[in-house]
């Protein structure tokens, strides 16, 4: 479904991504792990078309070459990102944010049913529909962000650190939801620091360090991978 | 270093002979160039490093002219100039304290509004309190006297600009312009530094107005608070590059002469040509003349 090769990206002199390549099959949930600064967020932003990257990069998504495609068209194709910081419109209401999410080729005709779907997924949002997003708690905002991305009827949902800054109990709920999204057939690419939880819902995982992919494997195997412990705690504890 | 000073002094000295060489019209041109050079340089002092686009130039310039108009019959001229500087200083400090926390376009509009506000208030004062509108300045100055005074002021302005660039305050301002976070964390009092520079810049502008005023004989608010002065200053400084010591003057000379040439040769299509030139400048020289010359030179060297 998604394949990329030779994706390099630098901020000035700092090489954030160094010839990254990987694939993701339809229906798969893949998690990307790695310490802060390893380049995980940059990878997602590059895929979403929000960062300039090397000309040599090849990205294909559901058969289309999207490497030179502007960001808004990628969303139209079904590649949705929930970025770090959530990328919401804080001065707009929950309802408006969701409606904006449906602003895609696939999303518009299914606006109503998708709306019902995400409000069932996050019942809390139903009562808060008129509230301004900026006044909501972090967990609620994260719900809006995911719900908004789902409104676009994505084929692949990319999530950047969805559990960041959330209370542990909310994190639990969040991963429950992600699990049910996965069950609905949407592919997911997740960058996450919560290793345990994210691997719990993933099929496969990649480990990144300083802009390179240094390991990959099935979710069950990765948890016990010494590379992972090394990447996070600096030692195989 | 001393060589540079020598060059600078020599150039000023040379320019001081201009009234002997040029006839009145040439001198008039020189007066225009020098006064805009000072305005653009003073503007760049503050706006170059901080990137605040100020349209308040004419507020200070006009106040300078007005101080002279009000006092020219009662006080000795040097004293009037001193009062003009003082007025500009006080006004800029008051304005600065209030406005320097506004950023971007808000500051732009505020500074424009300021010039209009000052103009309206002076008008109101003149009409209701002093009962005159329009004042006469009869000072025994000819064009060359005004030119020499402006030349001295230009020397002072460039010296201040040079000194500030090489002083602790100048470095502080550059740091503020590049990154306010870093600035405050290395111990720079941002507000105080900005205020200081704003005040210096405004005082110089006030002086230009004060020195030029005797040339007009008759002054009223609509004459001395002409917003075009603010705009031209900005354009000239930006064209030359406000970050360089000699940037402003490199913008002033070609633009001033271009405007003069256009208005002399195409009086009926002046506006159209001026507008066109403006647009072209933005498209062709986005970073200013000096940058362009530099690039051209580097490009040449690379071959």
């Amino acid at each position, binding site marked *: 479904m998604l394949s990329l090769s030779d994706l390099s990206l630098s901020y000035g002199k700092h090489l954030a991504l160094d010839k990254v390549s990987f694939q993701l099959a339809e229906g798969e949930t893949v998690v990307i792990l790695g310490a802060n600064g390893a380049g995980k967020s940059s990878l997602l932003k590059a895929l979403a078309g929000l960062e300039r990257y090397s000309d040599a990069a090849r990205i294909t998504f559901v058969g289309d070459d999207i490497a030179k495609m*502007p960001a808004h068209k990628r969303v139209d194709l079904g590649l949705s990102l929930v970025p770090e910081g959530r990328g919401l419109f804080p001065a707009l209401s929950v309802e408006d944010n969701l409606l904006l999410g449906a602003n895609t080729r696939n999303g518009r005709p299914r606006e109503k049913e998708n709306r019902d779907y995400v409000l069932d997924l996050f019942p809390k949002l139903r009562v808060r529909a008129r509230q301004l997003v900026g006044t909501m708690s972090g967990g609620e905002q994260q719900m809006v962000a995911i719900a908004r991305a789902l409104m676009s009827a994505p084929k692949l949902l990319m999530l950047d650190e969805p559990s960041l800054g959330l209370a542990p109990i909310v994190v639990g709920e969040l991963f429950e939801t992600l699990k049910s999204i996965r069950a609905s057939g949407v592919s997911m690419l997740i960058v996450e620091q919560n290793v345990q939880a994210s691997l719990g819902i993933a099929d496969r995982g990649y480990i990144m360090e300083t802009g390179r992919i240094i390991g990959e494997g099935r979710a069950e195997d990765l948890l016990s991978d010494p590379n992972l412990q090394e990447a996070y705690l600096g030692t195989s504890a | 270093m001393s060589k540079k000073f020598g060059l600078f002094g020599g150039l000023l000295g040379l320019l001081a002979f201009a009234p002997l060489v040029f006839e009145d019209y040439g001198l008039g041109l020189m007066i225009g160039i020098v006064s805009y050079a000072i305005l653009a340089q003073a503007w760049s002092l503050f706006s170059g490093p901080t990137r605040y686009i100020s349209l308040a130039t004419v507020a200070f310039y006009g106040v300078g002219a007005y101080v002279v108009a009000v006092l020219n019959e009662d006080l000795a001229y040097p004293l009037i100039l001193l009062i003009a500087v003082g007025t500009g200083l006080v006004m800029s400090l008051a304005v600065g304290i209030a406005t320097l926390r506004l950023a971007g376009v808000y500051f732009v509009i505020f500074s424009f509004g300021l010039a209009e506000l000052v103009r309206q208030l002076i008008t109101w004062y003149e009409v209701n309190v002093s009962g005159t509108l329009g004042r006469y300045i009869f000072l025994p100055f000819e064009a060359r006297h005004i030119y020499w005074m402006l030349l001295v002021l230009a020397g002072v302005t460039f010296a201040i600009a040079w000194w500030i660039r090489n002083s602790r305050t100048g470095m502080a301002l550059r740091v503020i312009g590049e990154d306010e976070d870093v600035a405050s964390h290395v111990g720079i009092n941002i507000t105080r530094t900005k205020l200081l520079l704003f005040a210096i810049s405004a005082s110089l502008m006030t002086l230009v107005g004060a020195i030029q005023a005797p040339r007009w004989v008759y002054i009223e608010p609509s004459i001395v608070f002409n917003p075009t002065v603010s705009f031209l200053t900005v354009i000239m400084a930006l064209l030359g590059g406000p970050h360089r010591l000699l940037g402003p003057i490199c913008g002033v000379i070609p633009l001033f002469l271009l405007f003069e040439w256009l208005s002399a040769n195409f009086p009926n299509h002046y506006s159209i040509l001026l507008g066109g030139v403006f647009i072209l400048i933005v498209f062709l020289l986005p970073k200013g003349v000096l940058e362009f010359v530099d690039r051209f030179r580097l490009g040449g060297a690379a071959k």
Partner: protein
Amino acid sequence: MLTTSLVIGLVLGGTYALAALGLTMQYGVSRIMNLAYGEFVIVAAFATFVLVSTLGLDPLLSLLLVGPAAFVISYAVYSVLMAPLVKRSRKGGNLEIDSILVTFGLLFLIQGILLVIFGADFQSYSYLNVAVDLFGVTIAANQVLAFGLATVLGIGLFLLIRFTRWGLILRAVAHRPDNAPLVAINVDRVAQLAFAFGGMLAAQAGVVISMFQTFTATAGVVFTMKALIVVIMGGVGNFLGALIAGLILGLVEAFVSAYLDPGLTLASTYLIFLVLLLWRPQGLFGKSVS
């Protein structure tokens, strides 16, 4: 006395609001600080003048001609002058400064063309210059019409912006342009359409204003300034805010004139603006950046 000032102020404010709506669109959504905005207003006024005096067209009818024409022209102006700057700003240019400079050039260009065609004369025609009684206050019908149009356009825009998908997209771009691509919005295209739409609104204001004000080729700057003040007072990109700010400005002028001193009306406009800017830099109804 009180009602008189109130009615006069509201009617006056309606004109200000009307003149500001387009700029709010252009600056709020497209991020173009259009200093030639007032020239668009004046060009429309001249166009109406020509239509009315040569073709004998009804000024209201010319609203339907001049508006769409302005949309097309503004659209073209954006393509030629603004789009390259927007593109450049992504590579480290400064859109705000560049747009100020370019539109300043445009201001002279348009003014020059008008001067060549029409000369520096005052232009005026008479339309609906009859008295209307409004709550016991006598006022010109053309001004009431202007007020009505301002209100209709303002509220119409508000409804459009508030309740349609296009409006929602505009708000999204005005509010967080960086996040807009995430929801499949083509920011460049929206900016261009908004600029053109803003140009159209400016033209509508020009048509209406020509019905009751004498104008010259060089009168545009005044409209730009008033519009800027209203836009910033109302909160950038906030249409309802612009409407209310315009009305406030009109009321302030009317009341200062009646109760303080007519000599201070313009000063009080600026003073209010300056004080407001210091008190709430994001405008009366602007959302502070969280």
